[in-house]
């Protein structure tokens, strides 16, 4: 029995093969991407071994929504490859196996392709939502002793002016805003100015996801309105305690 017949039997005859090029067979198997396209798996025989390959289709498909353009994404990609014993040559993923081991090898290959395809979930616009969760974690971890109160409206009749966290520090409470984009930067700026106009006694602190990501005018406005800014979550994580300690001293 050759390896193709063996594979058909192992897949309970639910698969087929199509010759895409001389010596290159495409596996037709009930393995699908989330958009309904079949996972691209090709089989080639080389020196008595079988090469299971995607001929570059996995990274091509990933690039519809995500480019591997940062060291972090590349690191995650390489980790998925190494943990699944997959190799890469110019974007083409492959795994070589003995003919009698092809069934588990194909399942492993398909699983790795699925993991790589799911890297689209790491898109910045998707994971941006984690910023507020991470900010909450840092506050819980580092500033709990200052009794943070989330979601406070300092002017009772203005439910449009919200402070993300209030810290009851004397002599002046701290109003803290998390800012991940320009629209939140503008809202925080307006809020600070309105609180000042209402002659509230407070200090305004801002934690940016990435200060440099804001437009020039947004940076100028928030810098003018806020008393203290942390340019990133890392900056806040590293320095929040000593800044709050000084405020409370």
């Amino acid at each position, binding site marked *: 029995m050759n390896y193709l017949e063996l594979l058909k039997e192992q897949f309970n005859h639910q698969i087929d093969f199509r010759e895409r090029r001389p010596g290159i067979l495409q596996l037709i198997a009930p393995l699908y991407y989330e*958009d309904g*396209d079949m996972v*691209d798996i090709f089989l080639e025989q080389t020196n008595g071994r079988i090469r299971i390959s995607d001929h*570059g289709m996995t*990274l*091509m498909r990933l*690039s519809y929504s995500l480019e591997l353009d940062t060291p972090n994404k590349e690191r995650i990609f390489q980790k998925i490859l190494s943990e699944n014993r997959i190799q890469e040559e110019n974007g083409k993923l492959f795994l070589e196996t003995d003919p009698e081991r092809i069934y588990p090898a194909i399942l492993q290959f398909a699983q790795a392709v699925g993991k790589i395809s799911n890297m689209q979930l790491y*898109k910045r*616009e998707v994971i941006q939502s984690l910023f507020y969760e991470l900010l909450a974690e840092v506050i819980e971890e580092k500033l709990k002793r200052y009794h943070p109160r989330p979601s406070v409206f300092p002017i009772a009749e203005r439910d449009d002016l919200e402070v993300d966290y209030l810290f009851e520090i004397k002599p002046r409470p701290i109003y803290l805003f998390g800012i991940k984009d320009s629209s939140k930067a503008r809202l925080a700026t307006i809020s600070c100015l309105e609180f000042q106009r209402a002659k509230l006694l407070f200090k305004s602190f801002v934690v940016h996801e990435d200060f440099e990501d804001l437009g020039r005018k947004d940076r100028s406005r928030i810098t003018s309105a806020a008393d203290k800014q942390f340019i990133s979550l890392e900056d806040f994580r590293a320095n929040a305690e000593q800044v709050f300690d000084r405020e409370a001293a």
Partner: protein
Amino acid sequence: MKEYTQQELDDLISCEKDICDPPKKDMRKERGSRRNNMRLRGRDGSLEFSVFMRINEDFPEDFSIGLEYHPQEERGSICLLRCNGPHGDFLGSPIPSSHFHYHIHKAKSQNLASGLRAERGGEVTDTYASYDQALHHFLRVIHAVNAEEYFPGLQAPLLPFPEKEGETQS
């Protein structure tokens, strides 16, 4: 996520768009495929879209040209339309399928309502039989008004845009 009616999705596909961030003159080779991208804006300026163009290096018949919609009010994007080459089987392909088909994925409201990818499932098409023809068809269907500036080779058949019933249904 906002709920979309099929009409809203169809309107997003067919509304007139301007290419605001044009594609590179030549596709770049990168990790096994040739790639190009561009960004488009709805003519009223409030809608944002991107287009990806990909051709596999080993199998040039395996290509994909897709339109992504980037809603301002929420994160992520929705794939509205993808014109694909005959790269393999897909949910929606004829059964039994004797050979691979050119096919189109189009966003469906029932997919989104079910929590699935908008463009899940494809439909066989005979509208095109090559990448260039697919690109021509795609640009016409998405109403990229200034496409002729950036795709001169495709200029002649692109305009005027015919108002055929079910243009995006192929």
